């Protein structure tokens, strides 16, 4: 298990190899389709983004509401493919360095990952209750009207993920099927 603390450097990303099990601590941000759409639209109009994503990681997740006394409800990864349309912009123009989700990415996203020396992590989909215990602090940063789809700032401790696509474009899903 490789332990990383955010923000992670391009050098650290370079060392990550497909299939590596990684545990992430520090600050990450959440966004799903609706938030991506707004950010990309705002950006295309020349507006400033609500959060500076340079060197940051986005977790594709829409959590359950927090029960009393908890900071967040179940919070596992959602299907990344729905963000494929927006992901190259987040990497090329927002300076994002990592994404956490589940499932395959489009060839365009893989190219953008290589071009930017970024990384795509996959979380265990469906393990929402367990992953929620790794989230220690939650703050809504933007688009509050989107509810679970708003942009949140998560402080996480030892969030377990696997390197799905590394900075050279090696893809864990493709490798698994070739075996």
């Amino acid at each position, binding site marked *: 298990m490789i332990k990383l603390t955010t923000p992670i450097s391009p050098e650290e990303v370079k060392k990550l190899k497909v299939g590596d099990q990684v545990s992430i601590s520090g600050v990450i941000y959440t966004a799903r389709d609706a938030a991506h759409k707004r950010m990309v639209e705002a950006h295309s109009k020349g507006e400033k983004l609500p959060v500076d994503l340079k060197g940051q990681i986005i977790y594709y997740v829409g959590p*359950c509401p927090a029960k009393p006394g908890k900071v967040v409800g*179940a919070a596992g990864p959602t299907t990344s493919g729905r963000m494929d349309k927006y992901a190259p912009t987040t990497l090329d123009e927002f300076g994002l360095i990592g994404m956490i989700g589940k499932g395959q990415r489009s060839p365009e996203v893989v190219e953008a990952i290589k071009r930017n020396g970024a990384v795509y992590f996959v979380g265990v989909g469906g393990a929402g*209750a367990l992953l929620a215990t790794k989230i220690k602090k939650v703050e809504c940063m933007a688009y509050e009207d989107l509810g679970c789809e708003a942009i949140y700032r998560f402080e996480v401790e030892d969030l377990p993920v696997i390197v799905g696509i590394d900075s050279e474009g090696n893809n864990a*899903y493709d490798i698994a099927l070739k075996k």
Partner: protein
Amino acid sequence: MKEINVQDITKVVEELCIKACTTLGNDWWQVMDDAISKENSPLAKDILKMLEENAKLAADTGEAICQDTGVAVVFLELGQDVRLIGGDLYDAINEGVRNGYTNGYLRKSVVSDPLLRKNTGDNTPAIIHTEIVPGDNLKIIVAPKGTGSENMSTLKMLKPADGKEGIVNFVLESVKAAGPNPCPPIVVGVGIGGNLERAGYIAKKALLRPLGQKNPLPHVAELEEELIEAVNNIGLGPQGLGGRTTALDVHVEVAPCHIGALPVAVNINCHASRHAEAVL
């Protein structure tokens, strides 16, 4: 004639929504234990164990198993000798869903219009299927369905000449195309026969059968055996990261159809094979 007050239905639906989203049945634990013991890949084993740990945590704390607590799909088997009193049946069910998703701190994932896409804020309306059956009971099954798996559903109108081989190929194609998206290990519901909407309906109903239980029709049970073998030979494995356990089970339901038709629907469920039922 038995009278059932719809307010009681509201209460039961609320409880079933919460129960289904937070606990998995004994059948699930059995097939998971079995899958862990048969899995060779260490990463696959780790993932399966993590899913068990997650399910245990959810059951102990009342937290949702998965954050996508889905659309509430409600199956009713309404005895024809039941008289419903106290209000509108479907309003009562939606009230139960509203209460369940609010009081259970479950995620609200329903938009009122597919084009305008505004969240209704309380996970209503539910998708309600009603069958009228003999007797004076009302059976309610609540099956929350997440979209990661639902989006991987497929339907194909095969030709009768395509036969069993065509069916097996189509199921395999569907599972491969779904890949990691529905959070494997999956449960595969296959509906064969009927027409466009019936094939989809019975594929979904197939997901309600306890895991490990075969279709009572021998030729269908045989097809299920063949399919589970073939699906688990794909090598997709847990989360699509490789391994033996791509599916926990494959359930097939069949229905009569036209002489010129062979509709096949595949409805995939995630490992979180969520459903809970009650009889009033």
